[in-house]
């Protein structure tokens, strides 16, 4: 446990110290009188990870109220979904969570496939899972790199980008793009892996496994980092449920739940059956269960689990087709489906409604960042201003997804 008093204790001490003056107002027995101040944080601020604005009410160093304002990056993704053909919408999915574009492609493709009821070739499923897990590694690398950056640890960021660069080079080889892939598509994947690609992925896994302890030692065991994050921004289990948190945010509060293992989709069922990967669940190692350190720890350990999944796929992949035979103009039969998959940030849900036409009736995106961000209204009041950055960073939001 950290010996520093928590924000709640500070607030309590403040109230205890206050004495009631003649007019009935409370006066604080501090040598400097403080007054409530409204601080505008963002929209252009490096620690908001995009363009997000938080209005904070502060009393000295204490945050007493917080109101996130979003919409600066709203690009009408859902309206576009009602105006373009099913396949044409795919590139737009890349652009909500641009750090995990493969996962978005997969979520949308699976939702459309759920309405169509089509089977995916086995090799395509394997390639999908390899790409999705590599992208998860890349996304978590950014998550912990920029989180360190937010609270003053510069070095891990450069280490994180070194490996991410290789991951992006791998994606460039398989689909030609570095950030917005549109590689996973309805019916399978766009094309087969080029010669030697799978071997390079295996090499990446080996290298990454060697490098990972460096990150862990650099950030997670760093005493300054531990002091800044342990016992800060605690989300108890009940609160996590109430706000609908998913993914690392939920596991960071000690809930043992991962859609890949517990409600498997694609070939994750087989991988989970082989017990090829574990689900890291926070235990409150450095402080209280559900604090910022726990959430970061979950992301950190998850990267190694993704490596295990990729290895399993590399061992089981077989030759075969990678794209089912589909007509050029896709007509999805009438129906509707909600499909949720495990994105690096939580459950990415797609609710699609088809009227039997080549253009959809409704494409709804349930972005995990949007839902996870809502918890700030509850979490920030009572924290210190300095901790506010640590708390916002630990939610690991991508503004492209909160605003869509």
């Amino acid at each position, binding site marked *: 446990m950290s010996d520093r008093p928590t924000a709640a204790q500070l607030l309590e001490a403040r109230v205890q110290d206050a004495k009631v003056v003649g007019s009935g107002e409370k006066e604080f027995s501090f040598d400097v009188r403080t007054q409530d101040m409204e601080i505008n944080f963002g929209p252009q601020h490096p620690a908001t990870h995009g363009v997000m604005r938080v209005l904070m009410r502060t009393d000295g160093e204490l945050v007493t109220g917080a109101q996130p304002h979003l919409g600066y990056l709203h690009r009408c993704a859902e309206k576009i979904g009602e105006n373009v053909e099913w396949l044409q919408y795919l590139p737009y999915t890349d652009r909500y969570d641009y750090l995990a574009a493969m996962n978005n492609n997969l979520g949308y493709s699976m939702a459309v496939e759920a309405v169509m009821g089509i089977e995916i070739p086995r090799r395509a499923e394997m390639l999908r899972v390899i790409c999705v897990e590599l992208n998860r590694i890349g996304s978590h690398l950014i998550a912990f790199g920029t989180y360190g950056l937010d609270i003053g640890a510069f070095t891990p960021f450069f280490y994180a980008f070194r490996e991410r660069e290789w991951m992006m080079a791998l994606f460039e080889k398989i689909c030609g793009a570095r950030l917005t892939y549109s590689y996973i598509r309805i019916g399978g994947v766009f094309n087969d892996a080029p010669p030697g690609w799978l071997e390079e992925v295996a090499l990446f896994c080996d290298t990454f496994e060697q490098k990972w302890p460096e990150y862990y030692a650099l950030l997670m065991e760093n005493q300054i980092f531990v002091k800044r994050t342990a016992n800060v921004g605690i989300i108890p289990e009940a609160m996590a449920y109430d706000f609908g948190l998913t993914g690392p945010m939920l596991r960071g509060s000690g809930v043992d739940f991962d859609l890949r293992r517990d409600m498997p989709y694609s070939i994750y069922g087989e991988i989970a059956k082989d017990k090829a990967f574990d689900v890291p669940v926070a235990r409150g190692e450095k402080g209280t269960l559900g604090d910022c350190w726990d959430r970061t720890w979950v992301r950190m350990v998850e990267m190694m689990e993704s490596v295990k999944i990729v290895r399993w796929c590399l061992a089981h992949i077989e030759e075969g087709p990678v794209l089912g035979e589909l007509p050029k103009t896709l007509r999805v039969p009438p129906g509707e489906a909600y499909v949720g998959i495990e994105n690096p940030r939580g459950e990415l849900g797609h609710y699609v409604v088809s009227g039997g036409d080549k253009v959809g*009736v409704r494409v709804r995106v349930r972005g995990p960042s949007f839902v996870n961000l809502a918890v700030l209204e509850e979490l920030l009041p009572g924290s210190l201003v300095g901790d506010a950055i640590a708390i916002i960073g630990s939610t690991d939001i991508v503004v492209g997804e909160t605003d869509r």
Partner: protein
Amino acid sequence: MDFQGIHDRLLANGAPGLLGVDEPRQPDPEDKKDKGRFGDAFVLVDPAHLAGFLQVCRDDEALNFEILADLTATDPAVDDENLWVNVALLSVKHRHRLAIKSLLPKAAPSLPSTTPVYRASQWHERECAEMFGITFEGHPDPRNILLPDDWLGHPLRKDYEFPKEYHGISCE
């Protein structure tokens, strides 16, 4: 639990506002115009009782839907009389999902807020309100969330007309 089991449990509990179910079906081979219905099965719920219904889903031990994964709305067509309110629930303990649909007349698009049951629905309802013009009675913070405060119209309605300009910025 599968969909049938959840539905039976809801019936046994007397969940308020439960109107029926809609399950996917294959097209009728005799009727050429019938294309069938594919995808998920869902339960139909009276919007006036949606909050009470969700409370039963959350508190019943066999259902135990701790998480409201999604709350959204759909405008099926310009000439359709109803909007849909779609809810997706997720149970961590029992590892099952439930899809809920409420038909809401476009003439009076209003229903009680579900925020007292799940705090998660607070932002989803704000988004529905601005995008579809649905009023959630008793919502604690009924401001726009993604759109500017002075935005006119409800963009995800099928009869929405795209603005020609916004604060002197031409949109054409």
